[in-house]
């Protein structure tokens, strides 16, 4: 299971890549592997305000359906439209081509509530 050192992680198995007051969010390799065969994703609208932990989208895999939660509070400034036609990108490349949303950070202090790679590794080893 791939866990990238430079990313931050949520307990809901989302990752966040921080850059210039924004984060790019996706789901982890562990999450995509558990879901398997993602066939559809409902993305949030660009421009909406979201709160950390709030459900902002839905990920449909063949066997199950799962909420996508906002990894941080802020404004959705971009969604990955490629996923509308190619949701399988999340399975194939969860940390790059399979990114899901870009959020303008509302409250930088929330960054501290996310996990480092080593903590996340411990979390999934317990599941």
């Amino acid at each position, binding site marked *: 299971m791939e866990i990238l050192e430079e990313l931050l992680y949520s307990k809901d198995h989302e990752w966040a890549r921080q850059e210039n007051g924004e984060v790019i969010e996706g789901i982890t390799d562990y999450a995509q592997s558990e879901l*398997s*065969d993602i*066939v*559809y994703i*409902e993305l949030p609208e660009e421009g909406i305000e979201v709160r950390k932990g709030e459900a902002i989208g*839905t990920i*449909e895999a*063949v*066997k199950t*359906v799962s909420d996508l939660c906002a990894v941080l509070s802020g404004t959705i400034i971009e969604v990955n439209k490629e996923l509308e036609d190619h949701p399988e990108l999340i*399975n194939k490349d969860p940390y790059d081509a399979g990114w899901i949303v870009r959020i303008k950070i509302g409250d930088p202090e929330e960054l501290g509530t996310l996990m480092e790679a080593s903590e996340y590794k411990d979390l999934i080893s317990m599941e």
Partner: protein
Amino acid sequence: MKKTPLYEEHIKLNGRMVDFADFKMPVQYSSIINEVKGVRESVGIFDVSHMGEIEISGSDALNFVNWITTNDASILKLWQVQYTTMLYPEGGIVDDLLVYRLPDSYLLVVNATNREKDFNWIINNKRGNVDIEDRGDDYFQIAVQGPLTLDVIKRITAEDPSDLPFYWAKEESISGNKVLISRTGYTGEDGFEIYGDSPLGMKIWDIVMDAGETINTHIVPCGLGARDILRLEVGYCLYGNDITKETTPLEAGLSWLVKMDKGDFIGKESLIKQEEEGLRRKLIGMRLESRAIPRHGYPIYKEGEKVGEITSGTHSPTLNYPIAMGYVEKPFHKKGTKLEIEIRKKMIEGEVVSLPFWKNGSIKR
């Protein structure tokens, strides 16, 4: 939790194991979508040893089988196979099953989830001079399914099974091991199911896989997830979802399994009554406009009023759109009727379509 004779094989293949009907079974190996594709385009192999086998013998075996099932077992010739249902007196379904006519007995192949229930049901309804034996643990069962299956099977059997018709069985020998093979399956593709003594299961699996390799035909191990999608794409019912104690074969579109003129059978009176009164609901197929997946239990509406419920639904990898089966009140069962399915509080439009969804299977009828 029980293990099938193929359990070690699933572990070796890195199958994702789940609890299903008292067994540890693989829900998938690589990817459900790839496994479905493998069966539609090439060959898939499934461990279905969790299915139950109940053997009925004795001088009244035929009459008894005809009493507990809805189809007419008396028309079966030696080695012929028949799809049928067992009913409660009220007309609801105990199980759907296959009946094999063997030289000295009838072999009933029943759903894994219903093994114990069916055996008890059959024992409790025993009539005449019959012996009823639960053979579920004695047999392994491997399904080999897909358009290229024959190429594989004919390499490993002593005799060429090319002319074995759909829904016929025969005794065969695979590397000197006695097995029963039948031209049956649950995928809509050409294929065989192989039965034999449980300890032989691993060996036969390996022989099939090796044969595929020899002729350069890719054989994809498939789990329960792929099996469920394959059957739904061709509109086959799954017990517990599409057919239950609460549904009759007439409502489920299985009236072709009910032979009213064959004599008495359990549930007949209730079906006659239902026929006279007219059906209130029917099992239908639906195609959805959106990509959201309709799942078991989701309500179906017509102009804001609830008219039914989804019993099975999935994303169809073969057709690349969502499909579902469900019961709706008449007259909303008619082909072309526009209905709405509630998916996470949103109304998603769909249309009633004819079954099967996937019409280009390689099955040899």
